């Protein structure tokens, strides 16, 4: 026991001997989680809180162009700058040089195109109902696109597509209204009733979003609940640079060799490393979680809600920490230089994070990549934390993560043992 305490003390002294390094081990994860959460939260707010700036060039010679602009404005999703008669070159120039990232050009025949289309469809419907004769229907093909959307090339595709879809939905409302109007007029009525007209835009069906979580408080998942666990795991696995390098240094400087000539088990040296770095990993998580709970709300971010299954949280945290430590020790044991350990280790963690779903959710990846991602310890740590933070944290949801992480730790330790055995350390 005295040997183990001495080894733990030595590891503690080594860790604390580099005060700046130790501080960075805590500050960098906190900084990472802050930045990512703020960025993700900003994106969420950008889409949902009226802050996407759009240049609308309305060249329409009819009235529907104005209707579209009005609907876009009323939606509350966009800040609109209106303009007229700008050439394609001028619009592109504005997008590349100004703060605008998106422009909608409403063509001069916008009203004509939409009206023609509505007329054509409404006549087709009436013909189906037998109200009109088929020989009175005139097929009119749409010749030009009535709407052009220009975008800054830096705009990410998913973001652009979400805006385009949003514009489509508003355009759909106008088209529907127009079609009903045409149906009314074709059927001999003068005008569509005012109350019905208002309903097209005002009384859209509300979509109730319900998370499939078993949380009793029914808190909606938010950027904090998603990002704090995900990026905490990512940061925790980055201890590979410190621990992996530390092991390589001990091997290279002969400290391990000296241990072979001392009546002490080599396992004591390894256990003491695991113990100290597990404390580091758990305190990293604790610091980040506490900041998420108490500090994030002060800077306008959603607060982190701890899962109800706190024992599960401790189990997943410890297993994730042990997985990170085991992998760092494995790399440190096999690497021949500190540079190898740091370089290989860091890149591997980034790849593990990418295929493990830390950056983008696993379900959006191709199936083969999802399958490969299942070898990533970060994937299972993340699944465990998501089960806790977002899905209610029942043990049956945690079990796959627990089993895989134990398996991963076991495999790493076996490989470490074999290497040390070959090198005569054990």
């Amino acid at each position, binding site marked *: 026991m005295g*040997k183990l*305490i*001495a080894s733990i003390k030595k590891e503690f002294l080594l860790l604390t001997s580099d005060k700046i390094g130790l501080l960075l081990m805590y500050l960098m994860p906190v900084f990472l989680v802050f930045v990512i959460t703020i960025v993700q939260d900003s994106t969420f707010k950008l889409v949902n809180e009226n802050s996407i700036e759009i240049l609308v060039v309305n060249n329409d010679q009819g009235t529907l162009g104005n209707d579209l602009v009005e609907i876009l404005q009323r939606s509350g999703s966009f800040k609109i700058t209106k303009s007229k008669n700008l050439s394609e070159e001028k619009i592109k120039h504005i997008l590349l040089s100004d703060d605008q990232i998106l422009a909608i050009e409403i063509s001069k025949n916008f009203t004509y195109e939409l009206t023609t289309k509505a007329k054509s469809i409404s006549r087709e419907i009436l013909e189906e109902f037998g109200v009109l004769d088929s020989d009175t229907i005139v097929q009119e093909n749409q010749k030009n696109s009535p709407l052009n959307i220009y975008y800054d090339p830096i705009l990410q595709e998913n973001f652009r597509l979400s805006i385009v879809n949003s514009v489509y939905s508003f355009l759909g409302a106008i088209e529907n209204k127009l079609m009903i109007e045409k149906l009314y007029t074709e059927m001999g009525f003068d005008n569509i009733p005012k109350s019905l007209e208002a309903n097209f835009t005002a009384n859209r069906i509300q979509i109730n979003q319900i998370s499939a979580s078993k949380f009793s408080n029914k808190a909606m998942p938010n950027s904090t609940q998603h990002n704090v666990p995900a990026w905490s795991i990512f940061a925790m696995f980055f201890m590979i640079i410190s621990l992996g390098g530390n092991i390589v240094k001990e091997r290279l*400087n002969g400290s391990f060799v*000296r*241990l*072979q000539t001392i*009546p002490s088990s080599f396992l004591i040296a390894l256990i003491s490393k695991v113990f100290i770095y597990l404390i580091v990993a758990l305190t990293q998580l604790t610091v980040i979680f506490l900041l998420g709970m108490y500090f994030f709300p002060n800077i306008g971010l959603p607060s982190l809600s701890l899962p109800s299954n706190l024992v599960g949280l401790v189990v997943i945290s410890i297993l994730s920490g042990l997985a990170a430590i085991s992998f760092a020790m494995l790399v440190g044991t096999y690497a021949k230089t500190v540079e190898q350990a740091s370089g290989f280790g860091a890149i591997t963690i980034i790849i593990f994070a990418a295929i493990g779903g830390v950056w983008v959710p696993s379900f959006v990846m191709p199936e083969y990549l999802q399958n490969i991602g299942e070898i990533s310890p970060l994937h299972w740590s993340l699944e465990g934390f998501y089960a806790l933070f977002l899905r209610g944290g029942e043990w049956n949801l945690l079990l796959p993560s627990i089993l895989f992480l134990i398996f991963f730790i076991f495999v790493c330790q076996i490989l470490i043992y074999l290497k040390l055995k070959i090198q005569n350390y054990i």
Partner: protein
Amino acid sequence: MKEVIEINSISKIYKRSTEKSLSNISFSIEKGDKIAILGPNGAGKTTLISIICGIIDSSEGEINFKIDDKEVNLKSMLFKIGYVPQDFSFYEELSPFQNLMYFGSLYSIPKNKLKSKAKNLLTVLGLSHVINKKIKKFSGGMKRRVNLAIGIINDPELLFLDEPTVGVDVQSKNAIISYLEELNANGTTIIYTSHHLNEAQEFCNRVVLLDQGELIENNSLSTLLSEHNELSLESLFLKLTGKAYRD
């Protein structure tokens, strides 16, 4: 004198090598010996010491350790063995005192005894003024002395030193050798490798000379000098190993 180590037909071939690094080496070490294992670069000195200390395995042969004429295994001997490797095998981020406390604890030395022993050792080796300073700022000579201090923290009966004075100034070398003399006078058997032949001539009573993995001499220094009609170890060394480079 009592035999403490018997080295029987030790050979070593490293992985991915076809040549023997050591070939059929046999000799014995007796209690109180001061043995210099000498030889040109690549002769197999470090390999031999590493095999005796259990750091690497031999390909052939065996090492027998004896306590009071009874054979014991290496594990039982580890409490009585001190090893000072050629490299600085300690934690440079820690102080010499912290290093000694750590390595000393692994020998299960009681804490209070270990503290006073560590302080005493560092004082004797001229490191009392830097007892709590980080080693990474030390000179080469100071690091060598820390390396030695760690190797003898357990008061070893058998002390193995792999080039303990390489790259140090005369003062540090003098301090190290003086302390080794003192240890030997108190009963510690010393086995060391060195390229400093004058130092070895002054310090050792026996010479084991290796060349290209083979044992070419094993005798007391005085016998060797008279047998080969040489006045110094250096001239004897050159006579037996030649003047060609061994890089």
